[in-house]
């Protein structure tokens, strides 16, 4: 199994367009860094993501088993995750700090521990 860091590196590349966006303001989503996140009971991988302040990115989150949710309240990001359907949210890391995300759709007995963090530097 690949490490979360390896998954993060594999998941980063430029994209031409994005779907759901947490913030529709400029700059456009074209050529933004794409970070792929895998969601399954009861983890996000990667579960720690490092971003640069002021550099927007796209999270592409895909659930592989059951219905999950992704919410990062302090980053204004939310997505409902249906199995096998990638969902994209735009992240505008305007402040430094550590921001937490979690699954907000009850997905079983480990649901409360399905969480992660975004570290903005």
């Amino acid at each position, binding site marked *: 199994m690949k490490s979360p860091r390896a998954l993060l590196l594999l998941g980063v590349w430029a994209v031409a367009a994005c779907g759901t966006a947490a913030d529709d303001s400029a700059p456009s989503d074209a050529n933004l860094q794409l970070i792929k996140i895998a969601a399954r009971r009861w983890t996000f991988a990667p579960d720690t993501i490092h971003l640069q302040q002021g550099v927007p990115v796209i999270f592409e989150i895909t659930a592989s088993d059951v219905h999950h*949710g992704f919410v*990062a309240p302090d980053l204004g990001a939310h997505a409902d995750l249906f199995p096998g359907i990638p969902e994209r949210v735009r992240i505008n890391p305007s402040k430094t700090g*550590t921001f937490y*995300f*979690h699954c907000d759709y*009850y997905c*079983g*007995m480990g*649901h*409360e521990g399905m969480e992660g963090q975004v570290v903005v530097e």
Partner: protein
Amino acid sequence: MSNVTPRPAPLNRSRRDLLKLMNLGGVVFASSLLRGVVGCSSDAKDGQAAAGPRSGTARGAADDFFFLQLSDPHWGFSGPAVNPEADQELPSTVATINASAAQPDFIVFTGDLTHNTDDVDVRRMRMLEFQTITSGLQAPLRFMPGEHDAAADAGAVYQEIFGQTHYSFDHKGIHFVALDNVSDPHAMLGADQLHWLGSDLAPLDAQAPIVVFAHRPLWDLKPEWDWATPDAAQAIEILMPYENVTVFFGHIHQELHHTTGHIQHHSARSLAFALPTPETPGMRTPIPWDPNHPRAGLGYRSVEATPVSQEYKLSELPIQTGDGAP
């Protein structure tokens, strides 16, 4: 776990003695005014209540009374690092309450009666065990689910055993409403329940005293820890025209007091394990068991409704062992 023998507790305590003896380390918190209680007008003197109920208020007499709020017992939970005696706390508390000479008018459990499981048979077994243990309580019981009870199956097993997940009732001049913000996987109250809430409250005067029970907080306490109800603002909007609303909730496993406009919110401690305060940075990690201070942060609550003095008095009660020590 259904065969756990409750630890013995001292017998024949009066309510005052019970509160006094069990309030070691606890506090008394004077809460919401009770203006508008049936039979208790602002010009009542010398403790004499005005005669006759007013239309549009909750029905019943304006007697002093008290009820207990027990929350988050998580029956079935196993976590030696946070409570190696988790299966003892509920039976002990049942025994202690029953040992009081004065019984509350009722006891409400504000959710997470059981710890969650993906096995429906285990879920049902835990709820039946919980029901068996609590059936030993002498006072009337009111239940409501937490997400650990109901989120996995939209409350199906819970309803089989305990009945409706949201309801209302009147008691001695106060209108009580139990809301369900856990059965939906998104933890929404939902349009249907919000409509029901508005209809349920519609006959009441704006001054009618209303107590709301909920499992999750009805405001964004800490959304990054899932301490919120996504559509709580709509419930607050419905409640806001009523001048005397107090909310008692659970979920966060600690005592906390908050005000939304004129609406007061009070969370209760857990009977199973403690969680960190909202100010704590990082993840929502349960507080480790401290053998030097066992059961620190655990407990339950007595709520004394006193129309004459127009306030609720909240007493935070620790869990006691058979030797009388918390």
